[in-house]
C-alpha cells in the first residue's frame, strides 16, 4: 500500500477493508455477528500565518471500529490500522478476544438494532488536487503583500461499513479545502473558503478578489455600536453558526425530543412555531457525507425536519428507534444533521444591502451557546466582516458585538425573509479527522436582533 509520495495510498483501502472484514467474519464463533466501520484519510496540510508557513505535513490514518454481537449482547472497540496485513490481522484478533471477554459480563441490550437486510453501496468522488508544493505556491502568491492566515488541507478521505451478513458500503472522496482570512489589522479580517474536488485557478482568483475587496471595505474607521436592537442581515456563514448550535444540542434529534432537552422545546410543549418561511431538512442527497451509518442503515435522500416553520420529523438513530418505538431513518448516534439544508426564500441575494437599508450586515458569527437552552435563548459574537449599512451602502466596519436573542425571534416572528440563493458551505472541522459535513443555507433578514455587549 505504498503510494507515489512514499506513504500509503488509499487506492486499495476499499479492497483492504473488505479483506479485513472477510477475515474477521471467518473468525467469528457460534452465532456472532460482526459490525465493522472504517474511516481514514491521507491529508496534506499547510498551516499559514502572515502568508508564510507555520506548520506543514501529511497525516496518514485509518481506524477500524468493531461491534461484536451475540444475540442481544454486544461490546464495541476500535483500533488504528497500520496498513500492514499481518499486524492488522493480529490487532483485530486480539480485539475480538477482548470484546468476547467483556461481553460475558454485560446483559442483553434492549436498544440494540442493526441492519439485517444487507444493501451494499459505493460512492467514490475522485478529484483533481494540485501537488502540495504547487498549492503552496498559489496560496503564497495570493497572500503576497497581504496578511493571509489559515489552513489548506487536501487529499482522500474515506469511510466504509461492512458486516458478517455480507453488506458492504463505501464512501470515498478526494477534496481540497483552503479556509483562510486576509487580515487588515487586529480583529478586522475577511474570511473565505475555497473548497472542492478540482482546483481551478480562475475560481480561486475570484475568491481572492472578493476577499481583497472586503478587506478594503474594512479599511474605513470602525464604529462601536451601543447595546440595543438592530435590523440585521445574517449572511449564510452566520446562519451556519445558528443552525449548528441548534443541531448540536438536539433540536432535530429524537432522543433530545423525548427527554425534553431540545432547545426547540417550546415547539413541542406550547405549539410555538418558527416563521413559515423556514424549512429545514437533512439533505443527504446533496451533501458530501456518506449515505450510511455505523449500524449499516442507509440514510434517505432527504428527511424533512422543519416544514413551513413547524416540526415535521426528527433524526432517529437505531438505538432511539428501539427505545422510543419509532423507525430509524439512518441517523448517527448523535442524531445531528450532517448535510443540513435551509430552503432558500425570495429575497434577491444580489440586493441584500438595499433590502437591509440601514442596519447591520453580519458576515460571520462566532462562539454561540445558550443563555437559556429551554427557551432557545442564544448568545454569541459577531466576527470578521461585520458592517454598519445606511441606505444600502456600507458605512463602516463594526467592532465586535455580543448578541443575546432567541431563535424564535431570529428564525421566527422577526424573520423578514431568506435570500433566494442558498450557499453550499463545507464543514472545515478537522477534529480527529477531516469532516465530511456540509450545509446549504441562505442569508436571513431579521427585523430586529438584540445585542447586549
Amino acid at each position, binding site marked *: 500500500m505504498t503510494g507515489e509520495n*512514499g*506513504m500509503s495510498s488509499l487506492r486499495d483501502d476499499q479492497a483492504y477493508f473488505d479483506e479485513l472484514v472477510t477475515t474477521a467474519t471467518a473468525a467469528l464463533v457460534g452465532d456472532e455477528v460482526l459490525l465493522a466501520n472504517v474511516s481514514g484519510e491521507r491529508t496534506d496540510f499547510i*498551516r499559514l500565518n502572515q502568508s508564510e508557513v507555520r506548520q*506543514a505535513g*501529511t497525516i*496518514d490514518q485509518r481506524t477500524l471500529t468493531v461491534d461484536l454481537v451475540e444475540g442481544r449482547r454486544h461490546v464495541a472497540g476500535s483500533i488504528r490500522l497500520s496498513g500492514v496485513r499481518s499486524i492488522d490481522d493480529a490487532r483485530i484478533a486480539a480485539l475480538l478476544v477482548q470484546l468476547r471477554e*467483556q461481553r460475558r459480563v454485560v446483559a442483553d441490550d434492549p436498544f440494540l438494532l442493526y441492519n439485517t437486510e444487507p444493501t451494499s453501496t459505493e460512492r467514490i468522488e475522485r478529484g483533481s488536487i494540485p501537488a502540495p508544493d504547487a498549492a503552496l505556491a498559489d496560496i503564497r502568491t495570493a497572500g503576497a503583500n497581504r496578511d493571509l492566515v489559515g489552513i489548506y488541507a487536501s487529499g482522500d478521505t474515506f469511510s466504509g461499513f461492512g458486516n458478517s451478513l455480507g453488506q458492504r458500503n463505501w464512501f470515498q472522496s478526494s477534496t481540497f479545502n483552503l479556509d483562510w482570512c486576509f487580515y487588515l489589522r487586529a480583529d478586522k479580517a475577511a474570511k473565505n473558503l475555497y473548497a472542492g474536488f478540482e482546483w481551478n485557478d480562475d475560481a480561486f482568483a475570484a475568491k481572492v478578489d472578493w476577499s481583497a475587496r472586503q478587506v478594503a471595505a474594512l479599511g474605513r474607521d470602525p464604529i462601536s455600536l451601543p447595546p440595543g436592537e438592530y435590523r440585521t442581515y445574517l449572511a449564510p456563514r452566520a446562519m451556519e453558526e445558528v443552525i449548528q448550535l441548534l443541531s448540536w444540542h438536539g433540536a432535530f434529534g429524537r432522543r433530545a425530543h423525548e427527554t*425534553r432537552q431540545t432547545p426547540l422545546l417550546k415547539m413541542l410543549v406550547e405549539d410555538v412555531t418558527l416563521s413559515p418561511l423556514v424549512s429545514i431538512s437533512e439533505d443527504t442527497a446533496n451533501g458530501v457525507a456518506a449515505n450510511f451509518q455505523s449500524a449499516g442503515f442507509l440514510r434517505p435522500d432527504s428527511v424533512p425536519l422543519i416544514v413551513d416553520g413547524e416540526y415535521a420529523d426528527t433524526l432517529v438513530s437505531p438505538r432511539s428507534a428501539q427505545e422510543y418505538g419509532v423507525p430509524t431513518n439512518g441517523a448517527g448516534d448523535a442524531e445531528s444533521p450532517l448535510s443540513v439544508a435551509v430552503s432558500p426564500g425570495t429575497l434577491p441575494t444580489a440586493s441584500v444591502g438595499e433590502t437591509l437599508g440601514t442596519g447591520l450586515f453580519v458576515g460571520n458569527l462566532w462562539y454561540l451557546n445558550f443563555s437559556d437552552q429551554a427557551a432557545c435563548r442564544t448568545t454569541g459574537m459577531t466576527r470578521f466582516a461585520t458592517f454598519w449599512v445606511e441606505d444600502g451602502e456600507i458605512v463602516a466596519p463594526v467592532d465586535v458585538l455580543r448578541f443575546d436573542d432567541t431563535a424564535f425571534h431570529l428564525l421566527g416572528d422577526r424573520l423578514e425573509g431568506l435570500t433566494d440563493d442558498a450557499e453550499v458551505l463545507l464543514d472545515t472541522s478537522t477534529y480527529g479527522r477531516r469532516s465530511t459535513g456540509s450545509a446549504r443555507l441562505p442569508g436571513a433578514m431579521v427585523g430586529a436582533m438584540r445585542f447586549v*455587549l
Partner: protein
Amino acid sequence: MTDLLIESQTLEDRLRSVLPGDVDYASVRLVDERSERLTVRRNQLEPIFNQFDTGVMISIWDAGGLGYAATTDLSEDGLRSAVDRARYWATVTAGSMVTTAAPRNHATGTYVSPVEITWDTLPLDDRIGLLQQQSRLLGIDDRIVNWGASLVRRDVDQLLLTRSRVGATGRIEQRFRFVYPSLQATANEGTNTQTRTFGGHAFCGQGGAEVLGRYGFGDAASQVAEQALELLDAPNCPTGVMDALLAPDQMVLQIHESIGHPLELDRILGDERNYAGTSFVTPEMFGTYQYGSELLNVTFDPTVPGQLASYAFDDDGTPAKRQHLIENGILVRGLGGAVSQERSGVPGVANSRADNWNRPPIDRMANLNVEPGASTLEELIASIEHGVYMHTNNSWSIDDSRNKFQFGCEYGQRIENGEIVGVVRNPGYRGISSTFWRSLSGVADTDSFTVMGTPNCGKGELNQMIGTGHASPACKFSNIEVFGGEA
C-alpha cells in the same frame, strides 16, 4: 492487547534507527493509547467502548524548513516512508516559514502518573455495578426525564526521541493515566428543563480508582438529582449589577477562557486568527499590565500530583516547571513553548503540546491555577450584600480576542445581606476580560481550593482537542452584570 508498546525495545530501536542525523533537528513521537468508556443511561448499560490508538509523528526541521509526517505504520518501511515525507515537507517549506526556530532540547527523562489504587481492585463488572448504582440514585422522580453515569479511563503512553545534526539525542518517556467520571440528571416540567451534572467539565484527573474518591463520585448522585428537581421550582436568577461568587467548578471555565486563552503566545502571534482567534493581550503588556486585582495570583503548574495536565516535559521536549503567569495582579509571563518564546521575545512556559500522534504540537494550557487566598468561604459569603453564588458551568461564549464573554451556570444561590437565601435557576453573567479580573474582590483559602481539569479544549488548525488542568478556590467578583433565563 496488554503488551505495552512503550516497553518494546525492538520498537524503540527501530524508531531510533530511522531518525536522520543529517538534518538540523529530527524527532519521532510515539503515542500508544488504550481507553475504556462505560455509560449507564436511564439504568441501562450503553455499549462498552474500547479504544486502541497507536501512531507516530515524525518531525524534521532542516535548512529553514519544517515537515511533519504522521503514520500508523510502525514497520521499518512505514517509518522510513514517513521520514521521507517529512523531509519532503521540510524541503517544500524551506524559505517560506514563519519561523526557523527549531526546538533545541534533547532532554532525557520520565514521567508516570501517580496511581494509588489500580483498576484491578475494581474489575469491569464492579465498575458497571457502580455506575448502575449511581444511575438508580439519579432516576428518583418522574420529572427526571434523562439521567446517566459514566466512567472513562485512558492510559496514554508517549515516547519522544530526538536527534540533532551534531549528534545530540534525547529520550522522554511519559505514561499518563486519566480518569473522567461524570453524572447527569435532567428534570423537566412543561417548558422548564433543568440539568445538574457532576464531573463533566471539572472533576477529572490523573490516577487510578482513587480519583473517584478524590471527587466524591460515590456520594454525589443523590444531590445531583435533588438539585435538578430543586431548580424546577426555583425562580430565575435576578438581573442586575451585583456581586458574583464563583464556585471552583465555575472558576475552571472563567480561568480557562479569560486568562488561559488570552495568554497563549501563538494566539498573540496570530497563528489562530483564522479559527480560535487572537488575543486582546499584546507582547508589550507582559511585565507591566494590571491583569487583575492584587488578589490575583495565577500559576502554570504541571507539577501538581494527579491534576489532569501534569507532566514532566512538553511535546517539544522542554522540561516543565511551576511558574507564575500573573503575580499580585501583574501579568508577568505568557503561555507559549520554546518556539513561540523565540518568535515573540516573551517569556513563556513548557506548554507545546499535541492532542495525539497525528497532530503537531502547539501552545496549550496545561495546569493553570488560581492560587488560594486568605479568606474563608464563609467570610466571602458574609461580605456580600446582594449577589449570586454560581456553581457548575453550562454555557460559555467569548469573542475571538478573548475579551467580551458571557457564561452561564447550572445552579445559583442568591445571597442577601451576607446569607444564602434561596436557589435560582439559569444564572449567568457577562463581562470583559481585560477589566473583569480587576473586580476580583475576594479569594477563598485552601479549604475550598479544588484541583480540577477540563477534558475538551478545542483549538488549532488542524483542530486539536486536549485536556487542561485548573485549580481554584471560590472567588468573589464585585459589580458584575448578572442575569437569569427567559421565564
